């Protein structure tokens, strides 16, 4: 990552924080203007919707042009990889040009072109291995995963994108799963990844976007370890099944299952504990997710009660727990306890609430009434119309 980009990111961090202070009324307009004057906008940053719109049209143009070229040129299957490599190079150069221009860097186009640049490269590698080198399936997939890991890791390092680092982490774990001791490697490498990248989360010398990438890698490390130790994943050989079909995988042995039971129970608690101790919300969030997964695993093996009872009790418990936490934090001195508060501080709550509308409508909007054909006699319809989904 170029030093000018890092400098721009640091200024953007301060400006974003100042906007939060202003939104919360913690600073007045005069102070905000003064901060803006001292930290002038290094690169125009359009609203997320504009960036999304730009990325949509760049994607449409790129894919349609690619399709048109392929139809017009009718390349041989042997030359198709090279055409894809050429397109990939064009996209990567275009992304780099945009990133270097402060006026274009954050408009959404750079992200879209770099994404498709890597996608074309990987498609080219796949065709090259499959059609030109005729590499057999297992070896070909391993090489493709190596290529994906390298491409996404380089892209994340160059452009500081958490999306690319996520793809790199996924490629990395898929690659490890192909090794004979894949599960053990997931645990060892997951722990190593978590420990290594947790050390650089607050490092001043790292660019802000690289620190976000490091946080993403910590999360993937934790999830990798959890996936390897989860009892359900062990019993169903989920990690081993990623090696490909046709491989004979022995059933889990008793000591392995005991260790998995302990891991499934202990790891969520350990992650939550670390999240609380370090006051890192992304670690806490990861802990909440794996706790939920462990409870689902428990329910799979131990039938505590009927499904409706478990769901209702779990829902009631979650609501009560959240309410109790909110109450406990709100009643602390200055509405905080041990460095935690239930207040939004400087977050943009209005935007958050607007974003909530989409999942709420998607989950609870009623089914449309069925078409009434001539001669149809209504029979009361299906139960669950008004906001409860199509049927119970």
């Amino acid at each position, binding site marked *: 990552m170029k030093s000018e980009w890092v400098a721009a990111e640091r200024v953007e961090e301060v400006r974003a924080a100042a906007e939060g202070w202003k939104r919360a009324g913690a600073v007045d307009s005069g102070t905000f203007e003064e901060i803006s004057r*001292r930290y002038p906008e290094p690169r125009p940053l359009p609203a997320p919707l504009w960036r999304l719109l730009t990325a949509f049209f760049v994607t449409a143009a790129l894919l349609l042009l690619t399709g048109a070229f392929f139809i017009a040129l009718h390349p041989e299957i042997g030359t198709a990889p090279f055409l894809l490599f050429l397109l990939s190079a064009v996209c990567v150069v275009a992304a780099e040009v945009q990133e270097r221009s402060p006026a274009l860097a954050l408009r959404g186009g750079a992200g879209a072109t770099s994404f498709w640049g890597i996608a074309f490269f990987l498609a080219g590698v796949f065709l090259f291995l499959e059609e030109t080198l005729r590499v057999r399936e297992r070896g070909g997939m391993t090489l493709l995963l190596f290529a994906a890991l390298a491409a996404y890791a380089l892209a994340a390092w160059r452009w500081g994108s958490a999306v690319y680092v996520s793809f790199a982490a996924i490629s990395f774990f898929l690659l490890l799963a192909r090794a004979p001791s894949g599960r053990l490697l997931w645990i060892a490498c997951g722990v190593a990844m978590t420990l290594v990248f947790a050390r650089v989360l607050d490092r001043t010398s790292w660019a802000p976007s690289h620190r976000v990438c490091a946080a993403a890698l910590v999360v993937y490390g934790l999830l990798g370890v959890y996936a390897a130790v989860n009892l359900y994943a062990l019993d169903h050989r989920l990690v081993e099944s990623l090696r490909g079909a046709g491989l004979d995988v022995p059933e889990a042995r008793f000591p392995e299952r005991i260790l998995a039971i302990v891991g499934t129970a202990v790891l969520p608690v350990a992650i939550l504990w670390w999240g609380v101790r370090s006051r890192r919300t992304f670690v806490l969030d990861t802990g909440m997710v794996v706790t939920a997964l462990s409870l689902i695993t428990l329910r799979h093996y131990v039938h505590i009660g009927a499904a409706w009872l478990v*769901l209702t009790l779990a829902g009631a418990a979650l*609501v009560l727990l959240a309410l109790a936490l909110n109450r406990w934090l709100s009643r602390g001195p200055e509405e905080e306890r041990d460095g935690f508060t239930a207040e939004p501080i400087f977050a943009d*709550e209005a935007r958050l609430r607007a974003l909530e509308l989409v999942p709420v409508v998607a989950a609870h909007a009623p089914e449309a009434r069925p078409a009434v054909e001539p001669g149809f006699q209504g029979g*009361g319809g299906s*139960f669950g119309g*008004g906001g409860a989904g199509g049927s119970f």
Partner: protein
Amino acid sequence: MNPDVAAAVEYLREEGVLTASQAHLFARVARRELVSLRLEIRAALYAGVLLLTGGIALFVNENRDRIGPAAIGGAIGLVAAACLFWALRRSVPFTWQTAAATHAAFDYVLLLGALLVATDLAYLETQVRLLGPAWPWHLLVVAAFYLLLAYRFDSKMLLSLALASFAAWRGIAVSLTKTSLGAGDPMRLRIEALACGALFVVVGVTAARRRRKAHFEDVYVNAGLLLVFGGLLSGVFGGRGDRWGAWLLALLLVTVAVAAVAFRAKRTLPFALAVVTAYLGLLRPIFEIRGSEALPLFLAAALAALALFFIVFARRRMRIP
């Protein structure tokens, strides 16, 4: 920790831009000495509501024959009433302006109460068959109930559900996963979608002009535009007997009008919706071109590039971030 912000806070304090108390608070947040759990609490509340409504729905489905409609209906009604009573006790008095939520759980308890009432209504309708063949009217009742709660408690969440329920009553599926408008005669559904959408837009604009819950305008207008554009696109991509040319003309007229109004009013989402809809609509005549397989793709790509230049130009002229 955010070392860049922490360093900036220290610098701004030394320069006298921030007061000592401001700098103290900002530095605590930047150094992660004070962390908000608001998002986690809200997420847990929403997940809890989802689990609760799912569990209750399952219970009703499994036990309706054994327990009987009166007991089930009564029990759900009691829980719903408790939720709504809690919300009523916690709410600020009715106002036509924005009313701030008084509790982190307010939105979710209100949502739970409203969903349970709707569930109860739907369940009782299936058991008692009060409306008989006219049972879809219960969707209108649910929509009216959601709307009432939305206005009383100033909830955009419930307003969205009210509009979705109203559309469902008219037979239109408001779903992100389904690409069709719903089941039945496509032409009737298109007309319904256009009428519903236009109604929502008119109500939204009127609300804003009369300053009666003016902040609900975006929900009304965006939902309305989605329905109108969905109806028009359905016509454009209909069968050959659907006169897609006329639908395309209508679509272009509407999208140009919406884009122009949104441009003047500096409203990003309606503008974006109009541009994307116009682009999608224009793909139909492009892909009707026969003779060359590559030409339609080239033209569609050129159109995307044109749209790209248009939105870059429009964003600059609108002078908004």
